[in-house]
C-alpha cells in the first residue's frame, strides 16, 4: 500500500468512526445520558397541593434557565441534534468521502 493509499484508508476509517460515534451519541446515547444525569436538567420541587395525588410529594421540572428558544435544553438538543446535527454530520462525511473518492480515482 502506497503512502497516499495508507493515508486515504486512515482518513476513511477515522472520519467514518468519528462521524458514527457522534451521530450515535446524538441519536441514541444522549437520550440515555439525560436519564442517567437527570439532575443536570431537572429540579426536584415540592408538588403543588392539587397535584400531590398524581405526582407524590415531590416532582421534577426542567431547569428554566436551561432553555433554548423556550424549549427545555434536553428536548431542544434531542430534536435539533438528531435532525440538523445529523444532517450536518452527514454532509461533512459526504464532502470528505467525495474528496477521497476523487483521490482514489486519480
Amino acid at each position, binding site marked *: *500500500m502506497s503512502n497516499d*493509499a495508507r493515508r486515504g*484508508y486512515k482518513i*476513511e476509517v477515522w472520519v*467514518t468512526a468519528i*462521524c*458514527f460515534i457522534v*451521530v*450515535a451519541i*446524538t*441519536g*441514541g*446515547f*444522549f*437520550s*440515555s*445520558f*439525560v*436519564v*442517567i444525569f*437527570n439532575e443536570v*436538567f*431537572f429540579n426536584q420541587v415540592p408538588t403543588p397541593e392539587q*397535584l400531590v395525588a398524581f*405526582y407524590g410529594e415531590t*416532582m*421534577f*421540572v*426542567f431547569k428554566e434557565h436551561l*432553555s433554548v*428558544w*423556550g*424549549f*427545555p435544553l*434536553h*428536548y431542544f438538543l*434531542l*430534536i*435539533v*441534534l*438528531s*435532525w*440538523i*446535527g*445529523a*444532517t450536518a*454530520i*452527514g*454532509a461533512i*462525511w*459526504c464532502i470528505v*468521502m*467525495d474528496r*477521497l*473518492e476523487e483521490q*482514489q480515482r486519480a
Partner: protein
Amino acid sequence: MEPRGEVFVLGLVLSIVVLLLSVMISVWARRFTRTLGDYYVAGRSIGALNNGLAMVSLALSLTTFIGLTALIIEGLYIAVAVYASFTAAFIGLMVLAAPYLRRHKSFTTMAFISERYDSKTLRYISVVVMLIVSVLYLGGNLKGIGIVFYFLLGVPEIWGIIVGGLVVTLYVTLGGMYGVTYNQTMQSIVLIFCLMFPVAIVLRTIGAAGWAFPPLGYGDMVPLMTSAVPHYFWAMVAHPVVYIGVFLGSFFGIIGLPHFVMRFFTVRDAKEARWSTVICVFLVGLVNTTVYATGFAAVYYMQTAGADIPTAAYDYVVFILVEVLAGEGWLALAIAGSVAAGLSTVSGLLMIMGAGLIHDLYSEFNSKFEALPFGAVLGLVAGLSFNQALSTFFGIGGMPWPWIWGIIGLLLGAVLTQLFFKPDVDDESKLKLSYGAMLLVGILVIVFSFEPPEFILEAIMWSFGIAAAGLGVPIVLGIWWKRTNKYGVGAGMVIGTLISFISWLMIGYLGMDPVDIPFPFFAKYFYGPLGWIKVIAVAVPLSFILTIVVSWLTPPPSEDLQRQVDEMHGWTDVDPKRYNGKGLPITIIVLSIIIMWFITTLYDQFPK
C-alpha cells in the same frame, strides 16, 4: 374514535386523486422498463434528489400520522428518543453501508449477503428474515389505509384495504422500480405539505407565535404547557438501556431492512447514494419534528380546552386536532397525506418481497426438487389467504377450514412447481415471472392485512429489531471486517433472528408480559414502558459477538471474497491488511458485553 356516519366527500376526492396519480405515474414510468435491472433497480439511474425524496416517503410510513402521536401523548420523552434515533439512524446507514452497498452491484440485501459470504444457505435464511420483517412492517401499514378510509371517510375498512392494496399492487407490478421511485417522490412531496400546512394552522389556532414553522414554532408555549402538565418534559420514565435498544434497533435495523437498502442499489453511483441520504435525513427530521409539535398541541389542547379524547383515539389525534382547530379543508389534505404515506411504504415492501422471491429464491434453484419446498410454502400461504378471504367475505371460517385450505394450497403449490418450474431461466422470462410474483404477493398481502397487528408503531419497532439482529449485523461486518465468514454470519444471523422473533411471538403477538416469562432468567429486566425494547439490546449484541467469535474460530474467507471488501470501499488494488485489524471486532465485543450487562443495572430506580 367513532367512524364517520357519512362519506367525507372532499377527503375521499383528494384521496382518490392521490391513488389515481400513483397509477398514472406508474403507467408513464413503465416505458423505461426494458430489462430485469430496470424492473428491480430502475437501471441504476436514479439521482440523489429523486432517491432522497423516495427514501423520505419510504421512511415516513403511516405511523407518522397514526401511532406516533399516541406515543407522544402517553410518554413524550420515549417518543422523542425513538424518533431522534430513527432520524439519526439514516446517517448511520450512510456512513456504515449505503455507498459500499451501491458499489457491490447487488440487487437486494439477500443477494449481497449471499455473494459476500459465498453461501446459498445464507441467501435462503436472509430471504426468510426479509419476509418476516416485511410482513410485520407491511400488514400494519395496509391496515392503516383501511382505518383511514373507515374512520375518516366513512368508507368500510375492508374497502380501504382492498382499494389501497390493489392500487399499490397495480402500480408496483406495472411500473417496477421506476414506477415505485417516481411515485415515492410524488408521495413525499404530498406527505410533507399535507402534514406541515395543517399543523401550522393548528399551532396558529392554539396561539403559538412561531406557527409558520411548526418544528420549532411552539417554544413560547412551553411555560403554559408546564403549568398545565408539569411532567410533560420529564425524562425519568424508562431505564436508559431502552434508549440504547432503540439506538441499536434503529441504526442496525435500518441497515437490515431490505426495502431501505434496495433504494441504494437504484442510484447512479456511490456519491449519489451518500447525498441522497443527507437529503432524506433533513426531510425526515423536518416531518418528525412537526409530529412532535402535533403531539405538543394535542396534549395542550386536551388539558386547556378540557377536550376529552379517549385513549383509543390517540392514534388519530392528528386528524382530530386538524378537524377541530383547522377545519375540514385541512383535514382532507391531512387524510390525502396519510394515504400517500401508507402507499409509499407498502410499495417499497412489495417490491423487495417480489424481488426476494424471484431474484433471490426462484432463480437460485437448479432443479425441480430444490424448488419443491418453495412452491409448497407459497401454496400453503396462498391456501391460508384464500381461507382468510372466505372467512372475511362469506363468514366461512373456523376449524378445520384453515387446515383444509392450507393442505390443498401446499399440495397444489408442490404439484404446480413440479409441472412448471424451469431451472436456468433467462432474464426475459425472469422479468415476466417478476410481474406475476409481484401481483401474487400484492394479493396475498391484501388478504393478510384483513387481520394485522393491532398497534402499527409497535409492529414496526419489532421489525426493526429483527432486521437489526438478522440482517443489519452481517451487512455491517461484511463491509467493515474482511475476516467475517459465512459460519460466523450463519451463527449470528440465526441466533439473533431467533431471539428477536421468538420474543416478538411471545410479547408482541401472544401479548405475554416479559416479566412473567421464566426463561431466559434476565427477562425480568424487561420491565417498564416499552421494556420489551431491551430484547433488542440482547439480540443485536449477541448477534455481533457470535458472528465475530465464530468467524475467528473458523477458516477465513477466500481472497476473492476479501477482495470484495476493498472494491466496496472504492480501492482498485487489494491489501490484505485493510479492514482486517483486531481493533474493530474487539471494540464491538467489549461494547456488546457492556450493553447486555447494563440491562441488569439501576433495577430499583425505575417504575416497573
